């Protein structure tokens, strides 16, 4: 409870607080309506229907228990998509975290024009994911693309090299586009935490004879730990929810197909509605569980110290 909530009704007893309560409910009503109709009801529906067979091409919606969930285990396409998604999560989260911290540390050293630098660096995040994907599709283009152009300029044999023919290079090509969009968010979050560290701490460490590297390890990193956890949670949820760039860059190709593309194909092309619902619930739970790991770790660390 905030102090405001405690004092105002205390002072305005009787009719006033009743009127406030009524006004409060009125002001919140639109939010409750929108969220109930478009989030909570569909979420409950997703859970309920995932236990039934829902397919517009087949009559009736019989109860099938956990069949949708057990079928997932033997579904080869779903398993490949899960594997791809885990690759994306591991690559994207580790690159974004490491490079994001390094980028934030760099920007933290800059004193002039930081606002403009930050604007330039955040731009990829602000662009629509599909626009980013088309930009990169053109960069990866075998003939006139920038990537092969640069490699050829360095004398490497990449003329007309097709990046999407090989699973490894296709996965990397796709995840690079995702990282390009999500890295700025990590930089901004970690940089803000670095800027709130009081300068005296560094002064004291310098007097004790610490060099830059040991100051970074013993002062900066521990103090931005919770910001790093927030950034990692963001990166993880974004990587599990990866759809736009993968779909535009490689369509339904199984080599790069993340789990959300698999859900989209199952639900809206094969019309296996309830199977898609079961998969989307599993994605939700898995991404929540993975995020929770970071949050709990940071919470414990900050609690014990």
């Amino acid at each position, binding site marked *: 409870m905030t102090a405001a909530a405690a004092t*105002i009704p205390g002072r305005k007893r009787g009719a006033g607080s009743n009127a406030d309560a009524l006004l409060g409910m009125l002001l*919140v009503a639109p939010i409750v309506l*929108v*969220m109930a109709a478009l989030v909570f009801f569909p979420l409950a529906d997703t859970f309920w229907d995932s236990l039934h067979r829902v397919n517009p091409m087949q009559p009736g919606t019989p109860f099938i228990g956990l069949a949708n969930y057990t079928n997932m285990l033997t579904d080869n396409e779903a398993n490949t998509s899960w594997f791809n998604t885990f690759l994306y999560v591991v690559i994207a989260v580790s690159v974004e975290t490491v490079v994001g911290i390094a980028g934030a540390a760099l920007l933290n050293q800059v004193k002039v024009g930081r606002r403009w630098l930050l604007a*330039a660096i955040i731009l990829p995040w602000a662009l*629509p994911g599909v626009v980013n994907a088309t930009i990169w599709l053109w960069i990866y283009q075998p003939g006139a693309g920038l990537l092969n152009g640069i490699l050829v300029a360095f004398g490497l044999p990449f003329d007309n090299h097709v990046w999407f023919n090989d699973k490894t290079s296709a996965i990397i090509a796709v995840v690079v586009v995702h990282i390009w969009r999500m890295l700025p968010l990590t930089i901004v979050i970690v940089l803000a935490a670095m800027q709130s560290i009081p300068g005296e701490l560094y002064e004291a460490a310098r007097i004790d004879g610490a060099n830059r590297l040991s100051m970074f390890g013993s002062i900066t990193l521990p103090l931005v730990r919770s910001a790093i956890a927030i950034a990692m949670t963001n990166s993880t*949820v974004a990587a599990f929810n990866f759809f736009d760039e993968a779909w535009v860059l490689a369509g339904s190709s199984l080599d790069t197909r993340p789990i959300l593309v698999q859900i989209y194909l199952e639900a809206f092309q094969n019309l296996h509605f309830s199977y898609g619902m079961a998969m*989307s619930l599993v994605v939700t739970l898995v*991404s929540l569980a993975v995020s929770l790991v970071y949050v709990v770790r940071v919470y414990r660390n900050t609690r014990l110290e």
Partner: protein
Amino acid sequence: MKQQSLPFRLLIWLGIAVLLVWSLGPIYWTLASAVTPTADFSDRPIHFVPTHVTLDHFARLLGINVSRIGGVQVWAQFRAALVNSVVASVAATIICVGISALGGYAFTRLVFPGRRWIFFAVVATLAVPGYAVLIPLYRLMSSLHLIDTFVCVTLIYVSAFLPLSLWLLRSVFESLPVSIEEAAQLDGAGRLYILFRIVMPLAAPGLTAAAILTFLGAWGQYAVPLIFSPTRTKPLTVLIPEFATKNFIDYGLITAAGSIAIIIPALVVIFLNRYLISGLLAGSAK
């Protein structure tokens, strides 16, 4: 402050330069390609800086020099998609920020039954990927005959961005001093007068931040309009990849369309950068 040694400063600026090339390089390449004549695309080695400059692709895209591609006029499609993107994103931004401002105020300053758990339940949905509800939403919207209408996509965007906006605005309202409101109340001002005449103007930077985040989010949406706005209300994000994946592949047109789709988010980032970053930080400080 401390004096930085020259090699150290060089290292920092080298790192910054790498970051800038990484962030802006692809955007530069898009803009450069958009003004490159189609014939030059087949030159090898490729030109990193366009040798000839043409506005032909923009002219074709904007219908100045009407071209028909795949039997369809590009400009009519492009203009419709641009209008659709603007309408859906602006409507979603106004509704989302409007109702979350009213609600955010109520959650901060008014006591009513259920206020704690309603707030918690709404903000908790930040952790639920939107995709988990797309299938039931599709059935709901098609039973209401709302597929391919602005009402449908706008409402979905509102429900998707409302938790973040509400979270951000509540923290903004909490940071405003209660004393001003109490003073106004003593002078006999009503709740609504206080809300609209005193609190809202003070919260303007926060409202701007919430509006920017909602607008950019709605502007960039792809999966939702792909399912819910397939034809009449099709936005730019759904149209542009079509240029790239249809049987004709016209990179001049794609990069020109991409350049135009970049403009609006770029303007937002350049001019509203301060609010954007404060909003991002408030929104991420869960």
